[in-house]
């Protein structure tokens, strides 16, 4: 059951108490963090329900909360997965997607089933390689990119297996 009201309420409590300024005792700050985390869980369900309804297919959608520190266990262990990029702006935007992955070669397909240029950058700080590819997303909509780890094989040999997909 998806629900955004717990996050609404947690945000309201935090804003009322200036919770981001460091002006609370540590155990209170810890409780603010707990409330936010508890509020975000049912929001993920809500978003998954919305995406399932829009796509007409119930999927296990995954949210990587630690992407800003280059951690996403799902993308780091999966051989094949989808990346849904949602754009909340009222104009189309391009964005470089960065995902922590295992070493290897990757084949990226855009919603039109075209191969997208990609590269894997190795980071010294985290030790995790990151996959980069440019995404183009329509205004107030989303695009779905498919990612397939092809290891050392020629990326072109796998391109025939990807199904064309498109969202807007």
């Amino acid at each position, binding site marked *: 059951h998806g629900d955004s009201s717990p996050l609404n309420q947690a945000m309201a409590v935090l804003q009322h108490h200036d919770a981001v300024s460091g002006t609370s005792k540590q155990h209170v700050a810890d409780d603010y963090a707990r409330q936010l985390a508890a509020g975000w869980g049912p929001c993920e369900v809500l978003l998954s329900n919305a995406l399932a309804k829009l796509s007409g297919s119930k999927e*296990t959608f995954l949210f990587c909360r630690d992407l800003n520190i280059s951690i996403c266990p799902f993308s780091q262990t999966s051989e*094949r997965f989808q990346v849904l990029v949602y754009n909340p702006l009222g104009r189309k935007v391009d964005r470089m997607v960065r995902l922590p992955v295992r070493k290897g070669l990757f084949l990226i397909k855009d919603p039109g089933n075209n191969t997208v240029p990609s590269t894997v950058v190795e980071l010294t700080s985290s030790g995790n390689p990151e996959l980069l590819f440019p995404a183009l997303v329509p205004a107030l909509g989303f695009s779905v990119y498919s990612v397939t780890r092809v290891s050392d094989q020629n990326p072109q040999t796998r391109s025939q297996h990807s199904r064309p997909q498109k969202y807007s």
Partner: protein
Amino acid sequence: SPVLSIKNEYLRASFHPDTGLLSMIEVLDRKLTLPVNQAFFWYNASVGDKRSSQASGAYIFRPSQQWPFPVSHLARTRLVKTALVQEVHQNFTAWCSQVVRLYSGQRHLELEWTVGPIPVGDKWGKEIISRFDTPLETGGVFFTDSNGREVLERRRDYRPSWKLNQTEPVAGNYYPVNSRIYITDGKMQLTVLTDRSQGGSSMSDGSLELMVHRRLLKDDGRGVGEALQEPGSGGWVRGRHLLLLDTAREAAAEHRLLAEKELLAPQLVLAPGQGPSYHHD
């Protein structure tokens, strides 16, 4: 060693060959060049002095002296160049590092910093800043977008509506920065977009600074009763500053659109396998 630089079709950023610090930005299509020295510094937090017993704390920013200490004079660097991105990884100390990044087709430089846990074994509270020094003649004026409303002009040691007796040369010139801070000489403008609210200032002409992290050992006596430091070894933060150099005439169009893209950034959701099929209706 040769000059380290990263470049795309619009920008070139150069780094000092001896120190590894950012030293120059060029906007190639507009033929703009600006020496920009960027580095991390720290203010020593006051624990009270003869003039006032006020300590630096969560509510009160009060450094013990006007000039900050450099975190490091040198950065160990590593260069990454691919078709999609060029990056210089800078390591200043065990607790301060940065990636300076230029994506293909991008008109701004991205600085992703990681700071912490701030060491306080010397018993000195520290407030860490990222500072950009340029030769721009700014006449004590800088701009911030305080309170999420319009961009406001700030003037060093000055208030527009009363005669200021400046008693805190650093803190008295710090202002909230919700999304951007910039300086201009009327011809060129250097803008820094933040990914979160921070404190910022221009402590000397041509200079911009933003506070990225702080760890303090004394309570400032405003009711919390605890010093501003996380339990254990302390917290660490990662954030981004987006640096835009442009003509003063064109800068607003650039930073307004870029700020929208940054603050309403695309969100990522992953799904296993080949994913759902597309339904037109």
